[in-house]
């Protein structure tokens, strides 16, 4: 079982600290939303899963068009709130929504139990649209949803579900999107009390552990999606074109959503020796630089992330400068590539000082030949290391083993099956080609399939 995914029962009494009384208007708004969704689920008008799939599929089709007004508004609003550039958000949404088609939704519905109960969704704030796979599954299963958006990201689901309601009011009536601030424990209690189907929560591990502790004492089922990491394995052999394609794909995987979600790769392992891995790091740096021209990085990074990137760069810079002449032969060498402000081209520190272009924080590639899996602060910061063969990967995952969500695999077809099997044994829920990491299929068993488990429990 996926250790970062928590299932259990939660009691409303988990919200022990009632510091704030709910505003009467906020409470009225929430109870009204709940009442409407309950009525939507119980309504006389039957919504078959086919009808839900058609409505969702058409909604997503509209949203795949960049000129669609609600999407435009959402992109503009999120760019301002999250600091991601509009171009990046556009490309990220394209990737996210790609699998949400009517035919695929219908196929997905066929695999789900009927669970026409009420579920609460506590949505993330770091990746707009994250959670859409679980939302689609719940709706296809016949559930009613109260989606509580995060304060940083109030737009995506509110606007998407508004479109759904316009496409098919009966299906739209099964969803309400609410937003209230943290500490509104009375409202949270009300939400949890009413959602008898269960609670789907996205959060860091500490948050989810606290929820799970509460769940263990109570009667609500909880599916928690906690802190997870992703990576990649590249085995392109001697083919430069395959390496180039893998680098381009991984640059896209790293870049979309500014590397803020659990599907974003942090560390790329390259099989075949240090020279090949180092060469791949240089390719990846070039690909990130090229992509940054089309999908600009935020004009200003959050302070903590910028400081963390600075710390990583300085450490890598000085390790590279200090390394012994034989480091490269032993596979222990370090190199740093970082965006340069003047022309966004790659600037490398590879054992001697680089020459004077002012750096930008747009992207960072750190090659550490012999490193175990590292996670960075996001914002296009990626590590590259060498493995002699794929068999070495397991031991190089280090502390990340058991916390992995996705892995991109650039490997010859005859090796893929075995490697995929091995990665799934390590708890990886999604294995794909480079370039597809932000486009998991609708049946992606996110967090080890916790959502399906929750729906099955609710269906009993």
């Amino acid at each position, binding site marked *: 079982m996926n250790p970062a995914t928590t299932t259990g029962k939660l009691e409303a009494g988990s919200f022990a600290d009632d510091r704030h009384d709910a505003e009467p208007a906020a409470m009225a708004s929430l109870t009204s939303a709940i009442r409407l969704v309950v009525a939507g689920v119980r309504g006389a008008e039957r919504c078959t899963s086919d009808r839900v799939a058609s409505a969702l599929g058409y909604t997503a089709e509209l949203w795949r068009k960049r000129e669609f007004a609600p999407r435009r508004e959402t992109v503009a609003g999120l760019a301002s709130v999250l600091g991601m550039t509009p171009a990046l958000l556009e490309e990220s949404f394209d990737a996210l929504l790609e699998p949400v088609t009517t035919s695929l939704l219908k196929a997905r519905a066929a695999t789900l139990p009927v669970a026409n109960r009420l579920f609460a969704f*506590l*949505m*993330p*704030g*770091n*990746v707009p649209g*994250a959670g859409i796979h679980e939302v689609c599954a719940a709706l296809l299963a016949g559930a009613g949803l109260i989606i*509580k958006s*995060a*304060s*940083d990201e109030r737009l995506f689901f509110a606007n998407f579900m508004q479109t759904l309601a316009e496409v098919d009011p009966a299906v739209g009536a099964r969803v309400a999107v609410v937003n209230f601030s*943290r*500490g509104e424990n009375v409202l949270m209690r009300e939400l949890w009390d009413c959602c008898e189907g269960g609670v789907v*929560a*996205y*959060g*860091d*591990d*500490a*948050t989810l552990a*606290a929820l799970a502790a509460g769940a263990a004492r109570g009667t609500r089922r909880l599916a928690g*999606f906690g*802190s*997870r*990491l992703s990576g990649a394995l590249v085995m392109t052999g001697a083919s430069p074109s395959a390496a180039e394609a893998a680098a381009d794909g991984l640059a896209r995987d790293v870049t979309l959503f500014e*590397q*803020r*979600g*659990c599907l*974003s790769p*942090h560390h790329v392992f390259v099989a075949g020796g240090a020279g090949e891995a180092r060469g791949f790091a240089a390719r990846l740096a070039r690909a990130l630089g090229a992509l940054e021209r089309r999908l600009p990085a935020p004009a*200003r*990074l959050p*302070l*903590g992330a*910028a*400081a*963390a*990137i*600075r*710390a*990583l760069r*300085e*450490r890598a*810079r*000085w*390790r590279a*400068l*200090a390394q012994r002449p034989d480091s490269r032969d032993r596979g222990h060498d370090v190199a740093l590539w970082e965006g340069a402000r003047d022309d966004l081209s790659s600037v490398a520190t590879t054992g001697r*000082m680089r*020459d*004077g272009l*002012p750096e930008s*924080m747009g992207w960072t590639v750190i090659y550490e030949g012999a490193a175990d899996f590292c*996670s*960075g*602060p*996001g914002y296009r910061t990626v590590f590259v290391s060498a493995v002699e063969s794929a068999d070495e990967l397991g031991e190089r995952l280090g502390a*990340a083993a058991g*916390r992995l969500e996705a892995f991109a695999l650039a490997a010859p077809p005859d090796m893929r099956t075995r490697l995929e099997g091995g990665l799934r044994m390590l708890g990886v829920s999604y294995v794909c080609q480079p370039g597809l990491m932000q486009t998991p299929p609708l049946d992606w068993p996110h967090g080890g399939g916790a959502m399906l488990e929750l729906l099955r429990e609710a269906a009993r």
Partner: protein
Amino acid sequence: MAIYDEVLAFIRVPELALFESLALKVFRHQFDSVAPYRQYCLSRGTRIGEVSSLDQVPALSTAAFKYAELGDTVTKSERAEVRVFMTSGTTAGRDERGRHRVPRLEIYRASALGHLRKMLFPDGARMRMLSLHPTADRMPESSLGQMISWMFEEFGAGETLCVADRKGVEIARALEFLGSTERAGEPVCVMGTTSAFGALFDELQTQSLRHSLARGSRLMDTGGAKGQSVPLSPSQVVEHAQALLGVDPASVINEYGMTEMCSQLYDVTAFNSCSVRNPGGTGFLDKRPKDRRKLGPAWLGVAAVDPSSLKRVADGHPGLLRFFDLANVGSVSAILTGDLGVIQEGTVRVLGRAEDGEARGCALGIEQFASREN
């Protein structure tokens, strides 16, 4: 040695108006005498002749001390005067310990004691001393240990005791010493890492012991969360020191220092506020411990810089802490730390260390349940 003597003279009798010109002189000396630093400056496009203000001086990451030899290779030093201090390696592993070569120890001594006198002994008192950290004779590579040894010499009177060595801290001996000090009714200065104080407080609580140390007693902790499995917050240090040792909260002073710098900063409280240089007011003295501000000596320039551009941010805005430490004349004075902080009226509020990375959840922003330190 002229530049060293100039710095020493400044530390002994600071003339604020001369700080920047001396700092630029020190920078030029280091550019000429510390090869890796010169290379770094050139790589950042710095032309020595064009540097006319401290903001133009490239600051070297503390990480550099782990991987490069940053000593002055031009000026001759007396062998007896040279010391190499090493970082504890708690964050990067023991194989990656930072090394700070200090070619003239008396400059470090003058810097450390000069500011300690203002911040921890502003009343001119001499007293019993208890160290929960190994002194220099027990751990010569520890810059903190060296400083504590000097404190024993300079501010100690009566009994002084160090209860720590490389293996650990003898808490039982510390408690014994505190008991005898209390019975004697004499003030004591207790110093050590925050984690050592954590162990001391734990033991006092376990044994349900409470001391009431004599008026004038004081405590200096340093290191913050480093090395602690359950970090003791600044507020907790102050609360425990008051509740378990009877030390006045204003006399519980946290030090901010690092092996890579020969100067330190200390909490400004009502106890030492007479030392505050800035006449802008002391209205911040009633801040909770976690919001306390720290003050460095006159020979330490402080700034907060944008981590991306490395340019100074306006006072009151957070950034990475950058220092120019004249007392580092024998290595590199312009230091870029990994700590975030805010500069206000010449004082520093340390916000904490920037993390290198962490697992990404789908929902770092599920703030509805996030707990925050009070």
